[in-house]
Structures are given as structure tokens and as C-alpha cells.
């Protein structure tokens, strides 16, 4: 009797788990599948297969211009976020000082403050100082601030593994403080930097919330532009663009998985 309950309990857990795992991948699979439709309207499953909407996407001016905007914003903001993240991680991992808790709170605050608030607050300031038309700059600032906590945490956790004695050993062997950092600490935190950079890039490249507030007429990101195209659903071109974004994200995801493992996402 207990064995019956045991087996049916296990079975129930399996069925529910599989259902919800399918739920998690469903919109992604559906987007990928419907991008290869041969018809001019979206339906699932598609009546036939073709790559015409990918060709349409590659020929669309809006795709290319906003894609490059997104890449520039993501690359620049990731670079700054990595630099800020390394500095902040070093401070938090190696120094005890009055106000350290406040410092930690400040650099992690973008995780606490809702994205809409960050976006609107920055917009509010840019209007006040009349820089609201410098869309690219505003977007880079916004994305940098929101992604720095990711690079910080990633680098910080890779620093936590190696203790002070390594640096002290290097210094006792004649390395200066700087060369001890570059020769000993830096190589050890490279995985954390890489993981943090990839997460920051992915976040920036895919962000909607901050970008929705800070995109100016001349400087829109691909997701924001895509948003306006989806609202009208004229044809499956957005499906092709969405699929390309999935593929790009998947490439970065696999890069993280292969280089540092999925643990960087799991330990929060």
C-alpha cells in the first residue's frame, strides 16, 4: 500500500515537473518554430516551412540600425560595468572600513530599486539637464548602472575563493602590491570576470525596461524597436528577429556554461 503511494507520488511529481519544464521552454520553441513559417501570418504549428522571414529581417533597415545600437550599448556598458565591478569587488573582498555596509548597499542598489524607477529617474534627470536627446549616452549610463551588480557579484565570488595568503606569499617572494594583483589575483578571477561580462552583455542586449524609458527617437535598441513591431503583428518578420535574439543569447549562455558553469546563476 505504501509502495503504491510511493510510486504514484513519484509519478505525480514527474508529471508535474515535466509539464512545467515544457511550460518554461514553450514560448521559446514556439517562437523558433513559427519564424520558419511559409505563411504571411503567424500561426502555430505553421502550415509550411521557409526562411523567407529571415531574409526579410536581414533586408529590414530597422533591424540593422537598432541591432548596431544594441551592440554598441551592450559592449560599452559591459566594459564600464566590468571595470566598476572589479574595483567594487576588490573593495568588498579585501577591505574593512567604516561604511563598508553602506558601500555594499549602494553598489547592489540597482537590484533593489525596480527597473522602472531607475529608468524613469534617469529620464527625469536627463530632461532636467536637457540631455534627453543623447539617447545612446543615456542608454549606456542606464545599462552600466543596472549591470554593475552582476559583474560585481560574479567577480566578488571568484575572489572569495582565493585568500589573502596567496598575495602575501607573492609579496614575500618580492612582488610589489600591483604585480601581486596582476600576476596572482587577476588570473584567478578571470573566470568571474568573463562570466560577469557575459551576464552583463546578455542583460543589456535583451533589456526592455530601462531602454523603454531612455530610448530616444534616434537611438532605439533592438528589443524596443521589436516591441513596436510586435504590437501590430504585420508579418512574421519579428518572429525571425526574436529567433535570432534567442540564438545570440543561447550562444552566450553556452559560453558561460562551458567556461565557468551554471553555478554563477544558481548561487545568489
Amino acid at each position, binding site marked *: 500500500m505504501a509502495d503504491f503511494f510511493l510510486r504514484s507520488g513519484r509519478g505525480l511529481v514527474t508529471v508535474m515537473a515535466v509539464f512545467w519544464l515544457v511550460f518554461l*521552454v514553450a514560448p521559446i520553441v514556439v517562437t523558433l518554430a513559427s519564424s520558419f513559417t511559409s505563411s504571411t501570418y503567424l500561426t502555430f504549428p505553421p502550415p509550411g516551412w521557409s526562411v523567407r522571414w529571415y531574409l526579410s529581417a536581414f533586408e529590414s533597415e530597422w533591424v540593422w540600425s537598432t541591432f548596431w545600437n544594441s551592440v554598441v550599448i551592450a559592449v560599452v556598458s559591459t566594459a564600464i560595468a566590468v571595470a566598476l565591478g572589479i574595483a567594487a569587488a576588490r573593495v568588498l573582498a579585501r577591505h574593512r572600513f567604516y561604511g563598508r555596509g553602506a558601500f555594499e548597499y549602494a553598489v547592489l542598489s*540597482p537590484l533593489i530599486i525596480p527597473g522602472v524607477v*531607475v529608468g524613469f529617474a*534617469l529620464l527625469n534627470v536627463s530632461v532636467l539637464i536637457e540631455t534627453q536627446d543623447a539617447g545612446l549616452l543615456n542608454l549606456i549610463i542606464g545599462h552600466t548602472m543596472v549591470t554593475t551588480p552582476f559583474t560585481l557579484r560574479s567577480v566578488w565570488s571568484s575572489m572569495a575563493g582565493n585568500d589573502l595568503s596567496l598575495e602575501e606569499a607573492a609579496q614575500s617572494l618580492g612582488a610589489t602590491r600591483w604585480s601581486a594583483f596582476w600576476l596572482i589575483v587577476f588570473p584567478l578571477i578571470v573566470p568571474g570576470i568573463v562570466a560577469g561580462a557575459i551576464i552583463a552583455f*546578455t542583460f543589456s542586449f535583451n533589456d526592455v525596461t530601462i531602454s523603454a524609458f531612455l530610448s530616444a527617437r534616434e537611438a532605439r535598441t533592438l528589443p524596443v524597436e521589436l516591441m513596436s513591431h*510586435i504590437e501590430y503583428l504585420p508579418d512574421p518578420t519579428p518572429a525571425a528577429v526574436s529567433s535570432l535574439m534567442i540564438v545570440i543569447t543561447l550562444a552566450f549562455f553556452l559560453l558561460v*556554461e562551458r567556461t565557468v558553469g551554471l553555478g554563477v546563476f544558481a548561487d545568489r
Partner: protein
Amino acid sequence: MKAGRFPASLATPVLLAFAVFIVAPCVMLLVKGLEPTAETGEWPDFTNVLGVFDSKIGQQALNRTIRISLIVTAVCMLAGYPVALFISRCGPRWRGLLLAVVIFPFLISAVVRAFGWTVLLGDSGLANKGLIALGLIERPIALVQNEIGIIVGETHLLMPYMILSLLAVLQRIDPNLRHAAESLGASPVSVFWRIVIPLTLPGLLTGTLLVFSLAMTAFATPFLLGGGRTPILTTLLYDYAFTLFDWRLAAAIGIVLLILGILFVTIHRFVSSRGMRSYG
């Protein structure tokens, strides 16, 4: 660990960036949101912030936000637990794959996901077709551009947080605790209810807080799946800012959201530090 001195050369650029681009804008938001409504009023004027809850539209948005967040949290809890349990019982190879299935969707852009859900939940989408085939409905029903769309989208957005919170505690459970209970006469069903569930309560609690707070402040997903007629707090802020151009009210909602964000983090910290202590 060095004690004392403030590491100025490292910390100053970081602090400066956050002071200028995070703290200052938030302060400006406070200033804006507390601006006096009438010409003669004095700063700070809380009329706008209180107005968020007083006006009909504000009240509706607040109620809707809370209602949706509660439903999403409940679904994430009920759905996330079996998923986490299942993954924790898998062998290492499967566990890695399933973990990827859980984590990958939350890196995907909200636009892309919303697009996928629009296709799935639309009038000719798989969901409606399935419901008709099962004989539950006769004609397609609206599943997007309303609260259902928001709930589905946010559940999809936030379930990974719940699963990862639960997995973190599930994988820390000492297998000997299960064995000890078994040797004392507890059947696997009894082990699950009396040992596994109590041991995962801290993870369930942090996951619940996380999901609820993120549901309260989510923007992109409800914006894209909710349509224009079901505003929640965040999308109402956007409407005030870009459609009605009433930035004072937008800022007032911003203040409310800011307070909510800080509140949840404070509770979360308190709960997780207590959780650590009680099972340490």
C-alpha cells in the same frame, strides 16, 4: 583582512558613479514626486503619493498589481516545488540539462518571450486550440492583452527564481537525514512530509519573497502582455510619463515602487539571516 583605512583610490570612482547616476536621480524623483500640486503649496507635498491610492485608476492598478502578484507567487510555489524536487533527484547529467532549461528562459529578452506567449495564447494559438479540442470552451477566449496574459507571462518570468531558491536548499539536505528517518521507521512519503518539507521551508520562504517582490515591480512582461486596459503600478507609471505627460504622478508611483523595493529587500535580508541561524 586589512582593517580601518578607506580604500579611496578603488572605491571613489565606484561611489561617484552610483552617487551621480543612481542616488541623485532617485533623490530628484523624490523631489519631483513630492512637488506641491497647488501653486501655493509647500514642499514636501504628499498629495500625489497618497493620490496614487486615492484615485480610482490608481486604486485599481494597485489592487490588480497585488492580485496578480499573489496569484503568480502561488502558482510559482505550487509549480516550482515539484520541478525543483524532480531536478534534485536526477543524476548529474540530467540535472545539468534541466538546470539549463530552467535558467535559459530568464536570460531571454522579455519582448521575445512576450512574442512567444502572444503566438501561443492568441485566438488561433495552441492554448485555445487545445482547450477547444478538450471541449472546455467552444470559441477562442482572450488569453492575452488581459490579466491572464500578465499572469502567464510573469509566472514564466519568475518561476526560475523559485526553482533555484528551492534547489539551493534541496541540494544541501544531508542524505543521512533521510536515511536516519528511514531507519527509524519513516516511509518515503512520511520522510517527504516530515523531513524534506520542513528542511526546505527557508528556501520556499526566500523564493516566495523574491517572486512576490519581483512580480510587484515587473514592467516589461505586463506591459507587453497586459494590453492597454489592464494597467498595474509599473505600466501606469509609464502611461503617466509617456501618454498623459503627468510626470509628477509618474514620480509619485515611482516613490511607491521604490519603497516597496526597499521594503522587500529588508524583509528578505531579515528572513534569510534568521533562516541561516535556525538551521545552521
